[in-house]
């Protein structure tokens, strides 16, 4: 196992009192994989990452790097590369000196270090920039210098804290693809912190979703997206419609959908229930006879390749659908129009029971 974190906890003393930032977190990162710690601001992602690097001391728990317990070691002895959100480049050193910093400390012979720096400059698209100072670089270039500096001494594990947080959207996307390709080339065990779910879904092998110092779910991107384990994950990863309703006598109604309680033996009369469905799992037609349910288009907005259509069902539920541009054109949807719709897949959570979200295909239970 590349990185293994067991039961890590961390409190901070603040002016407002004790703040528990991380509450007993455990997860694993496979050797050679690229994984993500995903969560909203303040969820404790950076704190976990910093504890793995030794920049923060956990109150309890243990960290293993390649199977070895490292909590008693200072950051110098852990062999991790760390990339900071704001790069943290050495301002007084040239790009090449930044990259060779770790090599010098490892007493790599000057010639070998020089060769390694040259190699990294080329690999990271920084050829010809070795003599510049950090302030003479663009944000994207700085980010790559920070990565090159962290990777130069060949660390066991690479940790990245919001690596693309400080660059604009376009560069962000480029760097993201580039990082994935780089990872495929060098295969160093990598764990990156991000609050951008798209980034995590797109380039990571595994995602650890954190919220308020706790882990909500660990899984492959598809698992996280298709079978969110909690309401938080459902809401946080990807777009999601969430509708709250109550189980009536032996059934739950959402519009014309009726869920018989025999089929859901955990639902009883009067239970508060939340239903989840993705906007792309909704089919719309301007022909009112095509689907059973009817609703009014309240608003449409342009998303580029897709259109976002906000609807209000006959029963008064509000939700939104995302449909491909060509279908939108073909059907000729307009605001104020009454359309028919069908929801392909739904998940539900019994709020009385709590626990995991359960998934079902709606058509089975009509």
């Amino acid at each position, binding site marked *: 196992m590349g990185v293994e974190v067991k039961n890590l906890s961390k409190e901070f*003393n603040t002016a407002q009192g004790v703040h528990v930032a991380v509450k007993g977190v455990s997860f694993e990162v496979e050797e050679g994989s690229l994984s993500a710690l995903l969560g909203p601001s303040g969820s404790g992602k950076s704190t976990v990452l910093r504890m793995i*690097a*030794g*920049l923060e001391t956990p109150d309890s728990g243990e960290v293993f790097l390649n199977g070895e317990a490292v909590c008693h070691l*200072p*950051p*110098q002895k*852990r062999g*991790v*590369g*760390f990339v*900071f959100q*704001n790069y*943290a*480049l*050495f*301002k*007084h050193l040239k790009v090449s000196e930044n990259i060779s*910093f*770790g090599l010098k*400390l*490892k007493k790599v012979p000057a010639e070998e270090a020089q060769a390694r720096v040259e190699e990294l400059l080329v690999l990271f698209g920084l050829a010809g920039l070795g003599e510049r100072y950090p302030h003479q670089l663009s944000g994207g270039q700085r980010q790559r210098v920070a990565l090159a*500096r*962290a990777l130069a*001494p060949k660390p066991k594990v690479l940790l990245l804290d919001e690596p693309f947080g400080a660059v604009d959207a376009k560069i962000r996307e480029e760097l993201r693809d580039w990082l994935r390709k780089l990872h495929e080339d060098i295969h160093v065990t990598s764990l990156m912190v991000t609050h951008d779910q798209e980034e995590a879904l797109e380039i990571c092998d595994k995602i650890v979703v954190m919220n308020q110092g706790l882990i909500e779910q660990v899984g492959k991107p598809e698992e996280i997206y298709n079978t969110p384990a909690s309401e938080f994950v459902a809401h946080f990863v990807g777009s999601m419609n969430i509708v709250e309703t109550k189980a009536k006598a032996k059934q739950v109604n959402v519009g014309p959908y009726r869920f018989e309680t025999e089929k859901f033996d955990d639902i009883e009369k009067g239970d508060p229930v939340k239903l989840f469905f993705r906007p792309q799992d909704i089919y719309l037609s301007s022909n009112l006879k095509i689907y059973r349910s009817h609703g009014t288009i309240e608003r449409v907005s342009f998303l580029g390749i897709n259109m976002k259509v906000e609807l209000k069902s006959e029963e008064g539920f509000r939700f939104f659908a995302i449909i491909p541009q060509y279908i939108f054109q073909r059907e000729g949807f307009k605001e104020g129009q009454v359309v028919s719709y069908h929801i392909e897949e739904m998940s539900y959570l019994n709020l009385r029971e709590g626990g995991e979200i359960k998934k079902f295909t709606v058509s089975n239970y009509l």
Partner: protein
Amino acid sequence: MLLKKTKGFKPLLITIVFVYLLWLLGLPLWTLIQEAYQEGWTKISQELFSLEVLRAFGLTLLLCLSAVVFNGIFGTALALVLVRQNFRGKSLIFGLLDLPFAISAVVVGYALILLFGHGGILAGMAEALGIRLVFSVPGMVIATLFVTFPFVVRELLPVLQELGEEQEQAAATLGASPRQIFFSVTLPNIKWPLLYGLSLSFARALGEFGAVLVVGAGIAGFTETATIFVFRALEERMYAGAYGASLLLILLSLILLISMEAVKKAKN
């Protein structure tokens, strides 16, 4: 904005500034040079190279250098602790930082005498260590350190705050020991403000009069600094020596000021 609209106001303002500075700085300096000239340069240079004056300048230099060395080490350490560590009473220390600016140097000198002098709380300690602190050079060093101590700390606090810890943490993950981190990351980032703070301490030590006079009692040839010498020379009507020493002090300050301007430019 308002000033720009009023025609002729700007030249008037500049004239006022010039006249003010001339009256405040230029005239005294001019009188000094004038008087020295009347005494005759040969006599003045003779006086300047007398043992008394050399000793006085030597002592002043010693005090200046101690201020630089001690503030360089302890001022930097204190600034680092204040910015990096959280502890009870931190805000109290922040409040006390400017105390040496507010308290009269004479009071400081007097307090040191009470502390280390006959029957003082710390008199025994000084005795045990075998140092005499009252009416002696070590006591004057302490007085100088007291009056100069805010400069380095005040210069470094905002810079360290702005610098943050990330560069140092990056160095740590790359394998740098705390010592290597300090010398290869922290120090290069604070060297200009540090140097500026040190020059301010040097300048203050150069001109200090009250505190060192009270603690050292200005014994000629022993605890007499350059400024104390000027004071005594004037009292005893040794004008040539007084003018010469004053001019030399001014020259030293000027050199210091010019180099400080250069440091300030490098700092920004």
